[in-house]
């Protein structure tokens, strides 16, 4: 039997665990990440040039991660491809789905002289993670308004803090580590605002508390952040949100307000606070362009759309597996468990191996956690009340709410795609990654029709359909792909 070749896209908690398990099952692995160091979002590493003596200070579970990355990256059957972006997945024959061909460019981000390569693996593990979802509000396009993830990435990844009078707002437990990172870096966090009310949180979290206890690692981590916030006397308010950012050329103050359970503003509760930065997150959006390009079926869940997987992390496409936050937002421990299962099975490991039992259990706990998370931190239906006619909805094209309403009112223009052409919303450089779900939701409401969704089995023309998943320059595209480097090539730098 020849050794199976497994390509893993993404070296975050899920991808790294997948690579490790696939190696353990005997496969040859190519581990790809567009970043120059492994770790993904959760284990974002400092640059090598920082020569950090105590990197564990910034990370939960640093030592376990450090051991795993060394084990994987130095393994003789593993080729580690950092600074490598998968820009397309090509299905060999649409009528006869096989493992998609993986097209990559290797080299500095968005550089014009990167080398173009392609891989034809026996199995593919997609572990490309998620990014913050941020709802629009007046002034959210001002410099100084960051996603919570941006603040986290800058603090953890290069020790840059976004400001010294910061409000952290939105919904979800992720707000806590972000506030904690800012405090540890010496910033002043004025307040942490959770938009959902105490009632919503209690109903979401208190249901079936034993599930939460089983997911103890995450609960302990969150308790630590809460203790840190208490120590620094940072007020954490529930049922309150940033509903406007103001300033001349940059954010100078925010307007916060009390919210009802549906996120409508309680009149008269508005307060302004001078700030130099705002960090906002209303949840996470999975990066679905590669799964959609591969032809994977999506599923709708309370928190949005995700890649549908079975109990073995298999997607609807043969030999394509998915793991981590693209299958549901459940945090790093669940991503690791999913990754390990996906990697083992993608490599042809036996599905009933004894060692898989704790992984499956941990994955199932993660799924239960994801459900509760989505239940406790929903996006309230009345959030569009925050919008004004001139509020920018699509950041790239600066399409405002009024133009979206006009497009919706025009009987000829129904559906997100038409709205897109009329308003240019979603047609800018980010290709609708930021505004896509919002535009789809607003259009659906304004027209009274359900949002367009990729239907089962049909290559989606929906919001995640981006034939070119990562930018590639014409010059790079015109160049013929280079022959593959040696199969077991491994990179010295980790």
């Amino acid at each position, binding site marked *: 039997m020849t050794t199976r070749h497994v390509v893993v896209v993404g070296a975050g908690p899920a991808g790294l665990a997948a690579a490790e398990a696939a190696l353990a099952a005997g496969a040859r692995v190519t581990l790809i990440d567009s970043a120059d160091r492994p770790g993904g979002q959760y284990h974002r590493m400092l640059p090598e040039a*920082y020569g950090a003596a105590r990197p564990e200070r910034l990370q939960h579970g640093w030592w376990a991660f450090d051991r795993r990355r060394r084990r994987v990256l130095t393994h003789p059957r593993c080729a580690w491809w950092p600074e490598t972006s998968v820009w397309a997945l090509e299905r060999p024959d649409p009528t006869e789905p096989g493992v998609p061909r993986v097209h990559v460019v290797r080299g500095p*981000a968005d550089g014009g002289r990167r080398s173009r390569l392609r891989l034809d693996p026996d199995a593919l593990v997609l572990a490309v993670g998620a990014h913050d979802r941020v709802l629009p509000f007046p002034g959210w396009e001002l410099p100084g308004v960051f996603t919570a993830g941006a603040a986290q990435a800058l603090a953890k990844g290069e020790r840059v803090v976004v400001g010294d009078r910061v409000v952290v707002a939105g919904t979800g437990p992720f707000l806590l580590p972000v506030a904690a990172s800012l405090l540890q870096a010496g910033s002043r966090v004025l307040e942490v605002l959770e938009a959902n009310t105490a009632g919503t949180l209690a109903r979401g979290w208190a249901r079936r508390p034993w599930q939460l206890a089983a997911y103890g690692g995450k609960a302990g981590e969150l308790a630590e952040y809460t203790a840190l916030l208490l120590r620094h006397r940072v007020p954490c308010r529930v049922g309150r949100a940033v509903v406007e950012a103001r300033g001349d050329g940059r954010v100078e103050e925010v307007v916060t307000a009390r919210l009802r359970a549906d996120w409508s503003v309680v009149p008269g509760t508005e307060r302004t606070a001078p700030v130099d930065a705002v960090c906002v997150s209303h949840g996470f959006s999975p990066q679905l362009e590669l799964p959609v390009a591969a032809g994977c079926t999506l599923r709708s869940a309370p928190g949005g759309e995700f890649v549908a997987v079975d109990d073995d992390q298999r997607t609807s496409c043969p030999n394509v597996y998915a793991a981590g936050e693209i299958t549901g937002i459940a945090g790093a421990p669940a991503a690791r468990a999913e990754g390990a299962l996906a990697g083992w099975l993608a490599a042809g490991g036996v599905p009933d191996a004894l060692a898989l039992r704790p992984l499956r259990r941990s994955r199932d706990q993660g799924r239960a956690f994801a459900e509760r998370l989505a239940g406790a931190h929903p996006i309230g239906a009345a959030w569009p009340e925050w919008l004004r006619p001139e509020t920018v909805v699509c950041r790239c094209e600066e399409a405002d709410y009024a133009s979206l309403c006009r497009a919706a009112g025009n009987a000829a223009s129904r559906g997100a795609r038409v709205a897109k052409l009329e308003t240019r919303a979603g047609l800018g450089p980010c290709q609708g990654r930021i505004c896509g779900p919002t535009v789809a939701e607003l259009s659906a409401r304004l027209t009274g029709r359900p949002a367009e969704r990729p239907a089962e089995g049909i290559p989606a023309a929906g919001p995640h359909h981006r034939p070119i998943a990562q930018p590639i320059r*014409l010059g790079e595209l015109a160049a013929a792909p280079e022959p593959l480097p040696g199969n077991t090539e491994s990179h010295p730098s980790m």
Partner: protein
Amino acid sequence: MSPRRVRAESDAVGRQELPLRITVDGEPVDGIAGQTIAGVLLASGRLAWRRGRSGAPRGVFCGIGVCFDCLVTVGGERDVRACRRRAHDGDVVTTQNRQPEAGRATDPTERKHLGLPGEEDR
């Protein structure tokens, strides 16, 4: 106040700083090895460096390569995500502007960054 880098002496992670210098629209800007171009710009007190279609200022929003707000030109190469590209000593960075009337023409083959419908980018 503006974004800043945590001082190395007081940083709990115990790290070194290897200085580097880039230019931004001709002006020298100091950073340290390992920083992204966005990190260098932010830590030097620049919160915004790109202009949108209306002329509105933009800088970093998502920080991880998703929103394309932070695009800059590096050594003549347009549309580089500053939050993803590591700075190198001597990098020549120029800022970008999407205002229809404001820009200078660039080579259309270079400008057409596939995956970015950037024709009107100037």
